[in-house]
């Protein structure tokens, strides 16, 4: 069924169709409409699920942990300061190996209060052990939420997944999306079968004190699982393509990269916008491609290295690791081993149009990079 709706409404619909047994969330702009919609689904009986109306995001994640540990599929959504308040529990969920799925609407951090898009909220959660997806369209939001449960719950992964998309640019913008029938979603995503749970007939203690002789193995296993998740994500993307006819390239969506001498690397809404920039530059005869970073954790090191073998990279970060540089740029440099051009753009929701991206391309060709619209025009 084709619908036209906002990313938030489509995210709520995807969450509903994934049939979580427990939803726990606290409202924050620009995530609120997801929570409202899900509450409506539950209260109208359209979705058979427990909805916990928590008093904070910290409790949202803590209750998702409690519920998931008791053996059921869960869902939550947040944004910005809400995600930051969850930080401790994000680590907890990942170390507890609970495949919770969460939507985060990327929004800048205050002060001053900003409700507009940037990715500093989720980039600050980089090391929590969560898998991170960045979406570029409402359709991708829907598809990724369903896929995320398969990835998270996969026996080789068993880690939580965060699906990110830009505040307002996606969250409140209506776009068309194709919604498969429930039975097709059900056959793609079977009911949750937990690897471990709290069970009165098989009592276990989870998370008690662990000495130095065991702790490193716990972390090592998380690392192995994130590495294995790369193939799991790619396989599930292929399966999705076979079933529903859409693919996002797994970890990195490449567009016109094959013969490109220059490849723009971006994610989220800027990644979508860069598509149009590449089209325009191609019309002018420029051999430009786009590598849209869809997955930030696990980091697609091999994919980017391969792209960088034959092309110069221009990386656009909608985040800043203050005191260093854009977080994507740091990691891409570490992955590819050669120099890149790197821009910081769009912080606090500053508009980044396809023309701005073309301008960044031109600047890069003049051997310039930096803070776009601040230190380079």
């Amino acid at each position, binding site marked *: 069924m084709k619908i036209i709706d906002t990313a938030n409404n489509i995210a709520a619909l995807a969450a509903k169709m994934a049939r979580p047994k427990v939803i726990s969330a606290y409202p924050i702009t620009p995530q609120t409409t997801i929570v409202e919609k899900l509450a409506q689904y539950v209260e109208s009986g359209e979705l058979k699920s427990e909805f*916990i109306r928590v008093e904070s995001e910290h409790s949202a994640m803590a209750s998702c942990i409690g519920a998931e540990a008791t053996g059921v599929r869960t869902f939550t959504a947040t944004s910005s300061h809400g995600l930051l308040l969850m930080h401790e529990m994000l680590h907890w969920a990942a170390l507890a190996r609970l495949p919770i799925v969460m939507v985060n609407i990327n929004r800048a951090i205050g002060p001053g209060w900003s409700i507009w898009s940037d990715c500093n909220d989720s980039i600050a959660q980089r090391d929590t052990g969560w898998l991170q997806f960045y979406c570029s369209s409402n359709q991708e939001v829907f598809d990724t939420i369903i896929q995320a449960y398969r990835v998270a719950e996969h026996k080789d992964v068993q880690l939580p997944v965060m699906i990110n998309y830009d505040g307002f640019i996606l969250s409140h913008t209506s776009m068309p999306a194709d919604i498969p029938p429930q039975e097709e979603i059900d056959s793609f995503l079977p009911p949750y079968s937990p690897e471990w749970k709290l069970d009165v007939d098989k009592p276990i203690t989870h998370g008690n004190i662990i000495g130095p002789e065991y702790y490193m193995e716990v972390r090592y296993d998380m690392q192995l699982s994130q590495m294995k998740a790369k193939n799991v994500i790619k396989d599930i993307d292929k399966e999705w393509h076979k079933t529903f006819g859409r693919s996002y390239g797994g970890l990195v969506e490449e567009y016109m990269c094959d013969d490109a001498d220059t490849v723009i690397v971006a994610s989220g809404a800027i990644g979508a916008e860069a598509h149009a920039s590449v089209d325009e530059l191609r019309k002018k005869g420029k051999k430009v491609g786009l590598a849209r970073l869809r997955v930030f954790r696990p980091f697609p090191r091999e994919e980017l290295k391969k792209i960088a073998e034959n092309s110069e990279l221009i990386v656009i970060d909608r985040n800043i690791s203050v005191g260093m540089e854009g977080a994507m740029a740091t990691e891409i440099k570490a992955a590819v081993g050669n120099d890149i051009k790197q821009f910081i753009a769009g912080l606090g929701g500053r508009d980044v149009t396809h023309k701005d991206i073309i301008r960044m391309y031109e600047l890069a060709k003049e051997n310039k990079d930096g803070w776009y619209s601040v230190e380079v025009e």
Partner: protein
Amino acid sequence: MVSIKDLPENEYVLEGNAACPGCPITIALRTMLKALGKDTIITVPASCSAVIQSLYPKTSFAVPTLNIAFEAAAASASGIEAALHAQGKDDITVLAWAGDGGSYDIGLQALSGALERGTNFIYVCYNNQMYSNTGVQRSGATPYGAWTTTTWTGKKEKQKNLAEIVMAHDIPYVATASIAYPTDLYRKAKKAKEIKGPKYMEIIAPCPPGWRFDMSKTVEMARLAVETGAWLMYEFENGKLTFNGPSKGIIDGSREPKPVEDWLRMQGRFKNITDDDLKEIKKELKERWEFYRKKSQLF
């Protein structure tokens, strides 16, 4: 009235656990779990009880146990309860088992949230009146005058009354207990198990290394706390406030409490209190009894 001999023989706090000698928490949890039985899931925030379980890969808790972050016990209980309800397992008791730090202070928001949401669980605050686990720092439950490692010259502020804050949430059952009265504790736990909705219990838990008394005196210390009126045992149920054991007589005036000095002098943490401090402590106790005298007449 159940007698001590009637308590079930089943043990859910196992031998060889990592509690300090003379620890009141194992006494309290042992009694609680005897009342709640096998079909109980327990969630434990950062606290002595996280240590008592002993080190991975061993455990001394024989019911399913989730460890959770310091401020998150009540929120995790909401999640456990929702998941059980979603699976039709409403006969399982959810127990949040937290210290006073995790309840009075860092966990207060989550506790208030879970109470207001009507989470069907039992929240127990075992109150040793300080952060024992981290080495005896003051908490919101530390009494006036008490030495801790963050109040070297004695705490200058009064303790807060968390049970009153909890009662303001209008939940079906609130009870306070003492490990020196295990049958009273057992009866209250049994009652809490049968009531639907949020239940709050608070158990006085004298900590030998923290309060600075001999480890053989834990139960005696918990009894004296009640006999001196420094700790009150009551139940608040269906809008009715009932005092239990010696607390009943202390509140209705039919029983003369033992001098609070008897309790204070046994504890190294009150070693340096002045006569003025003692006056202040006595004044505070009298005010508390008077408050509850009036309250029990109201309800």
